[in-house]
């Protein structure tokens, strides 16, 4: 298909207009059309094209990664939007090179491999300009700047391209009818597609919602109670905690609370999350009443896919510098964030001694039937039901502190005994989940509302980062007890657990820590501001590649373009008989859609047309006109005046007799 001058620029402008990127499209349009006036071309080899195609592929992959990274699944629209920019280097190179097509070897790895294996000798090539035009149009459809004008403008542009390629042998009216029919069908199809979409979309959404809802409550805590063997813990750093200068660090970071214990698993049955109110800027979130004096701590953490549960100090009343779409809190105080960056470094303002968890309910006093006897006996033995609740709490603490030890080595339970009974009565050793679960159930049996809390213990100070690091192995669980009208943390796990778990750390942990820190700094820098921040860091990675490519291209041998016009040709070689009247016949036949092929001699061409029945007066042409024309063109003496007159007369006569 022939592309008239300016088609590429027009396609770019169309794309830029619909995507609101005219400022990008305009310079690209100038660059792509500039070769029409430049006197030189790059002389590039197949290898150069292959390298460039590879670089374009890398650019496209980076673009895709960048867009998916920035926009998630909806990044596909952004990729569509920027597709012409990714393809632009390739088409620009074709336009600036001495070749009129790009080898398939450059475009397809499979062809390259097939050529290397010898399966294909000459894979040929393709003129990618038309592909680029189509890509621009498709990409324009992804834009919403002028939605209602999209179809008319793309249709007008397409008609323009088709007009310059219309088959000349058919009447213009026929062509116009065919195009009008195609356009009408196009508009009808678009309306139909919209209708179908309106019908299908709600159905699909309903189906998906049903599927997602059927998954149930994702918030439940599986414990290792009842497991056998040594617990393996990870050194991975999950939180970075920076208290205010001179202030005390929060000892525990609370992530979630659970109410019901069954089959060695804590469950939070009431999972309705409610959105917290935010400040005007959308980065500060109010949780509970804020007194005048609050401690504050900065917490850096990763959010997988921009969402997750936050670990915050108990008593947190406000979150600052948290650029997420929404913060939600459930009935047990867990904080969930949605649509945030991958890394956040927020500030939690809290009152250390006054937890803000919602008030207790009946469920906070339930001891599972399987454990009722065990804990009732224990309550009686420890005399927890006697005296005030504050003293009962102290007795529980003392009971665990004096009689129990921390261990990550889980033993096999006795027959016909629960793991908790084994822990409390036999082994007297276990990990934090045993202590926390036992404490919660013991307190509940004593009539004190209690919950099972999970989160992290803050204890490791990093001299490199000058802040506290919280690793996955610092994950901890403890009990929350409702005493004297307020929730209190009750951590009965012996203090030695920290040293025991630290002993499991690997020898290369310091190296890992430095790497982790650098990765965190990079991630933090990337996500420094809001979601709509400038994500140009990826472009900085691409820039050196582009510079190297540009440098290599600039160093290529440039050859002066050979002009195709007759005037320039005459400086190199005299084109005798260029004014032959025969060319008027050729012009007329070409205009009627019967162009002569590049390597086709005039007689071959005319014979072909005559055989296909589209050449009237073929005999006269072959017998009289062509010999005269050839003598004029290829005989050194050319035609004398009489001969030229005879040629012109014969041509005139032919043209008169054959108007089309």
């Amino acid at each position, binding site marked *: 298909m022939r592309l008239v001058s300016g088609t590429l620029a027009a396609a770019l402008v169309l794309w830029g207009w619909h995507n609101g990127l005219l400022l990008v499209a305009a310079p690209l349009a100038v660059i792509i059309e500039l070769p029409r006036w430049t006197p030189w071309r790059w002389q590039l080899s197949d290898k150069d094209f292959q390298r460039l195609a590879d670089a374009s592929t890398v650019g496209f992959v980076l673009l895709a990664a960048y867009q998916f990274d920035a926009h998630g699944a909806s990044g596909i629209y952004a990729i569509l939007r920027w597709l012409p920019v990714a393809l632009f280097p390739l088409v620009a190179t074709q336009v600036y090179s001495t070749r009129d097509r790009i080898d398939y070897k450059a475009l397809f790895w499979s062809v390259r491999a097939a050529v290397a294996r010898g399966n294909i*000798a000459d894979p040929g090539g393709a003129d990618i300009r038309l592909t680029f035009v189509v890509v621009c149009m498709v990409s324009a459809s992804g834009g919403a700047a002028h939605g209602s004008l999209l179809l008319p403008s793309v249709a007008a542009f397409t008609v323009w391209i088709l007009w310059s390629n219309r088959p000349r042998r058919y009447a213009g009216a026929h062509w116009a009818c065919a195009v009008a029919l195609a356009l009408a069908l196009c508009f009808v199809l678009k309306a139909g597609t919209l209708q179908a979409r309106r019908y299908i979309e709600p159905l699909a959404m309903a189906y998906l919602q049903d599927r997602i809802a059927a998954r149930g409550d994702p918030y439940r805590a599986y414990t290792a109670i009842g497991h056998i063997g040594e617990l393996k813990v990870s050194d991975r750093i999950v939180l970075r905690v920076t208290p205010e200068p001179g202030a005390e660090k929060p000892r525990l970071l609370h992530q979630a609370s659970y109410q019901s214990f069954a089959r060695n698993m804590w469950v939070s049955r009431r999972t309705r999350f409610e959105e917290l109110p935010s400040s005007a800027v959308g980065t500060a979130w109010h949780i509970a009443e804020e007194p005048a004096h609050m401690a504050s701590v900065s917490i850096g953490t990763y959010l997988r896919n921009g969402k997750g549960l936050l670990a915050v100090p108990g008593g947190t009343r406000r979150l600052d510098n948290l650029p997420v779409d929404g913060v939600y809190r459930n009935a047990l105080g867990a904080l969930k964030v949605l649509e945030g960056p991958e890394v956040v470094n927020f500030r939690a303002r809290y009152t250390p001694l006054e937890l803000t968890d919602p008030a207790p309910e009946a469920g906070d006093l339930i001891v599972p039937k399987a454990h009722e006897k065990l804990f009732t006996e224990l309550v009686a033995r420890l005399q927890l039901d006697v005296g005030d609740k504050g003293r009962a709490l102290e007795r529980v603490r003392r009971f665990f502190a004096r009689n129990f030890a921390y261990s990550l080595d889980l033993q096999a339970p006795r027959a016909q005994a629960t793991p908790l009974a084994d822990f409390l009565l036999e082994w007297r050793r276990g990990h934090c989940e045993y202590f926390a679960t036992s404490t919660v159930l013991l307190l509940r049996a004593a009539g004190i509302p209690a919950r099972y809390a999970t989160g992290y213990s803050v204890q490791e100070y990093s001299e490199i980062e000058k802040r506290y690091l919280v690793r996955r192995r610092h994950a901890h669980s403890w009990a929350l007890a409702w005493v004297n009208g307020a929730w209190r943390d009750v951590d009965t796990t012996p203090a030695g657990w920290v040293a025991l778990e630290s002993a499991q750390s690997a020898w290369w942990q310091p190296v890992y820590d430095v790497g982790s820190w650098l990765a965190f700094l990079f991630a933090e820098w990337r996500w420094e501001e809001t979601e709509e921040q400038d994500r140009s860091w990826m472009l900085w990675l691409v820039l050196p590649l582009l510079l190297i490519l540009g440098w290599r291209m600039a160093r290529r041998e440039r050859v002066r373009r050979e002009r195709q016009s007759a005037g320039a040709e005459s400086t190199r070689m005299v084109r*005798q008989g260029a004014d032959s009247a025969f060319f008027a016949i050729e012009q007329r036949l070409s205009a009627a859609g019967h162009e002569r092929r590049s390597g086709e*001699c005039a*007689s*071959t061409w005319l014979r072909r047309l005559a055989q296909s029945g589209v050449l009237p007066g073929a005999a006269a042409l072959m017998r009289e006109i062509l010999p005269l024309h050839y003598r004029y063109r290829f*005989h050194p*003496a050319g035609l004398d005046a009489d001969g030229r007159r005879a040629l012109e007369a014969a041509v005139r006569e032919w043209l008169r007799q054959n108007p089309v």
Partner: protein
Amino acid sequence: MSTPDPEPLWSSAADTYARIRDNIGKVMRGQSQAVRKLLAAFAAGGHVLLEDVPGTGKTTLAKALARSIDADFQRIQFTPDLLPADILGVSLFNQREQVFEFHQGPVFTNILLADEINRASPRTQSALLEAMGEGQVSLDGVRRPLDSLFFVIATQNPIEFQGTYPLPEAQMDRFALRFSLGYVAASEEVQILDDQSARHPLDGLEAVSDHDDIERLRDAVRAIAIADELKRYVVDLIVATRETDGVLIGASPRASLAVMKCAQALALFDGGEFVTPEHVQEIAGPVIAHRLVMDPQARYSGHDAESVVSKVLDQVPVPT
């Protein structure tokens, strides 16, 4: 000084061509295109390699040409034990005279039929190199010129490989044209049976031209005009073969010369005074294809030299 008017020259040359063509046509039924090519090479001063399966009339065509011209004719059957001296000649010591006497080989003739040339060793094949390229033989330090009419028609069978030696590239380049005869139409083949039922028509073939006629024919060919634009077209075609994928060695400038000379001959045969693009395109395939050295990978992929020439002819813009 005035230049002689070429009109009578062309006229008599065209007449000579027509006589020879018709004479050969008595023997070679349905092979008018092959005869045209053979005579184009002959008139242009080039040599011809006929490549075809056995029995298609290669040797008959060569003999018919030789008999049509009142000129010397020699035939060499190439065999693996053929030696260069069997072609070029040998110096023997004459004991009576006490001198070396040179005994000319069959190469000292006007028309030489080198039958099944690929059966001889490359060394023997190469003995023809100087003779074909320069029209002379250098032996024992003595340069012996060949007759100006010296014309080689070599034949080879393309399907047999056992006991054959493919012609070296340098030798191939010495042949102006390579073409095949192919099978004739059934009706023509019936005619051949009729012709040979009593005796071979070759036996009754008489010379219709002599040495001078051929010299004039060659002069006339040289006088045929060719426009600069067409010369450029010829060179563009040759250059394009060197840049085509799958071609290890493209055509040489000798190929450009051969295309031009043969196109001039065709123009003369058509009664013209100048070459047209059609003449160039008609002769390009037989002149160029056998000179191309194809990449083995391309060959195995089904691409041959003929397809390269066709592609080049399709792609290089032809002047009109």
